Structure formats: C-alpha cells, structure tokens
C-alpha cells in the first residue's frame, strides 16, 4: 500500500481543474474478484484500487460488469473469488449493512428511490444509521428523540440547499421529473456522509444542462467534503473531464487502468469502444 501523498498536477486533459486536492492512501482495493451467476461470468479476476479523495471512473461497454462491480463493493453480491479491502480491513465479501455503516453509500442506475415518501423523508432515511433513539422515545416524539430529529433535519436541510431542491421538499418523489429524482437520490446518498460514494450512471438520460449541474455537484462533493467518488458513466466527455483515474472493463475483465489521458490512448480501449473484429 502506497503511503505517500501525491499532489495533483493540473495536467491538461487529465481530470478536473481543482489543483489543490490531496489524493491520499488507498481507501478501497479490489483484488482478483470474480463473480458468476450460474454459468455466466459477470466479473473475472478484476483488481483495482480507489484512493482517498479521488474521483474514480469505471467505464466499459454494456454488459462489461460495471454495475456488478459496484454491487460487489457494497455487498449486494458476494464474489466467488477475491477480496475487498476497505479502510485496511480485508474481507472476502461485504455485507450491505456493514458497508453502509462503514461509510459506503450508493446511487442506482435505475432509480431506487422510496417512491411513496417525500423528498425530505427520502433524504432523512439516509440518516437512519446515524439516529440512535429507541422506539419508546420515538413513540413519545419528545425530548431526546425530538432533539435528534431536529439535529438531523438541519443536516438534511443543508443537503437540500446544496442540491437546490428546496421547492420539492415535501413532494412525493414518485411524481417528480427524472432529473430531480436523480438529484434526490444523490441527496439521500450524501445524507449518509459517506467516505466512499458510488454513483451508477448519475447522468444517464439527462440533457446537457442537467449533466453540467450534476457534474458540478459531484465535483463540489469531492472537493469540499473530501468524499471519494467512484462512478460509472457512459458519457466519455464527462468521464474524461471530471475523473482522476479510469478503469476500463470489457466482458468482465479489466482491459485498462490509468489517467484519462492514458486510457484514451490505450489501443484495447479504442478497440473495445469502436468495435473491432476479434
């Protein structure tokens, strides 16, 4: 494990413009992970790491195993082989609850909001882990339970302000437009105050303006809260602009890993994307 702290260089084309962020130690590393469903191999022997404070992109054609990789990282799937090391603890697999309580949070490719609840309740639900008062206090809704509720409400209101969704605070999320739902989902993930934020296609189906907004949110989260971000995205322009390092998967295998510049020049990546007869 490398302990040195690299200072980011503002090299052209490599990642976003923030020059003062510190990229630190390895936060999470995936070693030789394989995952199969029955006979279908979704991931074969993939290793890579995510460093503290960076924006790490996972890209690849459809069916490359990107979402499965995120599912392994936050414990929804259990790999057949390989290990995951998060904050120095090595595990064969994560458990969703452990992953969440240790600071991994997540958004989903096909929105997974709590559709019957309001925006506020959705984001408050992201703080469930941090709220400790027992059932009896909650039944009274008074004293410690009330103070706790207010304290977390304040934190949530900050997130609502940050994401500029004050006007839909009390609206049921099921009826919101797609772009806003994506934002609420990001808010819910942020409410957990994660160390590692996994974003599964945060900009899918968005128009240019919405993409710019979302990029701005991601960069701000990364800059100001020093949250490490791992994201899957198909929009190569966005990926090359905002990420520090990129890992490329194809058919469940890793075919490239490096800075956006390196990856862009990699012949196998070009082949994978342009399609070449094997």
């Amino acid at each position, binding site marked *: 494990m490398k302990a040195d702290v690299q200072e980011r260089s503002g090299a052209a084309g490599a990642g976003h413009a923030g020059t003062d962020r510190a990229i630190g130690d390895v936060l999470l590393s995936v070693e030789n992970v394989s995952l199969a469903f029955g006979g279908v191999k979704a991931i074969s022997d993939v290793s890579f790491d995510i460093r503290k404070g960076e924006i790490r992109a996972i890209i690849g054609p459809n069916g490359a195993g990107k979402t499965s990789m995120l599912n392994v990282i*936050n*414990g*929804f799937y259990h790999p057949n082989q390989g290990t995951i090391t998060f904050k120095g603890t090595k595990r064969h697999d994560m458990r*969703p*609850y452990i*992953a*969440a*309580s240790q600071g991994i*949070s*997540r958004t*989903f490719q096909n929105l*997974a*909001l*709590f*559709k*019957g*609840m309001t925006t506020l*309740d959705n984001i*408050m*639900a*992201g*703080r*469930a*882990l941090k*709220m400790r*008062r027992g*059932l009896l206090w*909650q*039944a*009274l*809704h008074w004293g410690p*339970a*009330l103070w*706790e*509720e*207010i304290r977390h*409400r*304040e934190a949530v209101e900050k997130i609502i302000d940050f994401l500029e969704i004050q006007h839909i605070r009390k609206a049921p999320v099921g009826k919101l437009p797609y772009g806003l739902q994506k934002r609420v989902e990001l808010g*819910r*993930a942020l409410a*957990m105050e994660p160390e590692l934020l996994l974003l599964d296609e945060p900009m899918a189906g968005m128009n240019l303006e919405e993409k710019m907004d979302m990029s701005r949110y991601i960069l701000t989260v990364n800059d100001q809260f020093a949250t490490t971000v791992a994201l899957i995205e198909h929009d190569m322009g966005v990926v090359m602009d905002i990420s520090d390092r990129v890992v490329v998967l194809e058919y469940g295998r890793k075919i490239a890993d490096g800075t956006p510049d390196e990856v862009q020049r990699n012949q196998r990546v070009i082949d994978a994307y342009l399609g070449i007869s094997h």
Partner: protein
Amino acid sequence: MLYREAGQFKTSYTADMAIFPIRQDRIALILLLLFAFVGIPLLAHFQLWPLGSDYMLRAILIPFLILSLAAIGVNILVGYCGQISLGSGAFMAIGAYSAYKFGTGVHIPLEFLGTEIRIAPLPVLPSILLGGLMSAIVGILFGIPSLRIKGLYLAVATLAAQFFFDWVFLRVKWFTNYAPSGSIAAPDLHFFGYFVHSPIERYLLCLVFVTVFALIAKNLVRGNIGRQWMAIRDMDIAAELMGIRPLYAKLTAFAVSSFIVGVAGALWAFIYLGAWEPLAFSIDRSLQLLFMVIIGGLGSILGSFLGAAFILILPILLDQVPHAFGVPVSVETVSHLVFIVTGALICYLLIVEPHGFARLWSIAKEKLRLWPFPY
C-alpha cells in the same frame, strides 16, 4: 377562503414537523376531540339525538373505535411496512385470550419439573397491555419468515398464524379455563378502583385507548423508525444498501402492529363483546381489517379511522336505505350486497386511488385551500 395557510410561517423545525402544521387543522382536531370526549357523553347522558338510546354507543361508536385501533395496527404492518397480513384476526385473539388469562390468573403446571408457574389475577389495565405484549411476541415469531420471503409468500405465512390460533383457542381448553362450551366471559372492568360499566363509560375508555395509541402510532410513523418501515416497503434492496437493517425494521413493524392489534383484540373481547367464542376472531375478521386499511388508505393513520367507519356503516346503510324507499331487502341479500360492494370498491380504489379515502380527503383539502378560485 377560510382554509388558508397563508401568513402562517414556521420558524422552527419542530413547528414544521407537527402532525397538523396548518392552524385550521389543529382547531378542527381540538373541536373533534372536544366533541368526542365531552359532547358525545353529554348527548348520551341526556339522551339527545342521535344518542337517544344506547344503540349508537354500543353498536356503532364502541366497535368503530376498537376496530379503528386494530386497523391502525394493521396499517403499520401492511400500509407502512408493506408486509401483507391475512392473520390479524389471530393477533386480536391472542390479545383477547392472553388478557383473559392474565385477568383470571395464570396457572401452568410443570409437573415434570416438580414445580408450577402461578400468577395471581391481574387488574384489567395490565391484563390488556400484557395481552398486547403477548401478541407482539407471537407477531415477531411469525414475522421471522418475512426476512426470507416476500409479499405473497408472507400472506400464506400469516394465514398459517390465523388457522393455527383458531385451532389453539378452540381446542386447547387451558386458554378458556376449561369452560365446557368454549365460550368465556370477560372479567369486570375495574380501572384504578373505578368500575367501568355503563355504555358511556365503556365508550370513554375505548376513546382514551384509541387516542393514546393513535398518537403513539403517528409519532412512530413520522419518526426514524417510520421512515425505515416505508423505505423497506418502497424499495427494500436500496434500503438495505443504505444501512437499514431489514431484520430490525420488519420485526419492529410486526411487533408494534401486533401489539396494537392485540390490545384492540382485548378491548374487543372485554368491552364490546363481554363474552365471546373463538369464532369472534376468524379469518373473516382478518380480511375485514385488511379491507378497512385498503379502503381507508394504505399508509395513513387517518385512513384507518375512515376505513373502519366505512366498513361498519356499509351494512347498516344497505339495510336501511332500501327500507326507506319501501323496498324490503332480506338479511341474506344485504350480506351478499355487502360482499359485492366491498369487493367492488376495493378493486375500484386500487385502480383509481390506491391511497384510499385518506387521499381523497387530502385532495378535498387541497381544493379547499384554493376555494373559491379554481386554481
């Protein structure tokens, strides 16, 4: 113009989180509670319309309150946590029989250990609450399968509870204190030295229970645990990945729901029925409670009251209205009509307004806010 929130600014999160953030709602609630606690007893005391006889209290208001309470319990499980239950009747029965046993004294001979467990008869209030507690414990046990199975499979698990406990209370004579007919009578209702006897007193007792538990239920569903229940209901996988433990969320829903249903069962037996047989808590009761929740509104405390009121009033309406028009309808036809109307209404509401009467009510309020302008 009367129902406006304009000018009411919330200056604290506490005010914003209140159950009724709008002033007019609060006034309406206070008036309603005043009427329920003071007005109705006064009307009944002086035998004024519509409380000229005991009928209104005994046959409508008391069952309405108790079934509303049970419906709140069912709504927590089905409406808030999304775990279907076809066995609520069994949990009412567990509450009723446990309360009966605690109220008349528990004696468990343990001859093979050379000992016995003997609990002297308890007063009525602790008996009823312990009835709820027993129901909660059994609820947790039958909720455990919900950790592995979902939706419709769970329906069958709760049916198992229903049929198993139907049988237990029919066949295991210990629960009925070996009464030869299987029918048992509730102990006298002494509360803190006060003998609750007249219909007015019984009504007030139910009202106190329902008010307290409705408030507790509302507090729970608007707090952290309520959000966890709803998260599990709406998207259980995402909830789990956010650190909400399905084990804790589901089992607390089962426990709280069964507790409330159990208390309602004890009240039903002690206050409404007085004397009862095992069939008082059959699967018909379970389905009736489920219907109340669907019709009133899944995921709404207010809806539980509306649903209970509707299900209780429907047969009376179907009986009285044709009579008023001079068309006599047989008792049998009325019961068939009740089936048809209830079933059709459920399908209709599921298609048109899955949140039931409660949502229609809030839509009406929304309209009222704008009135007299169209938008």
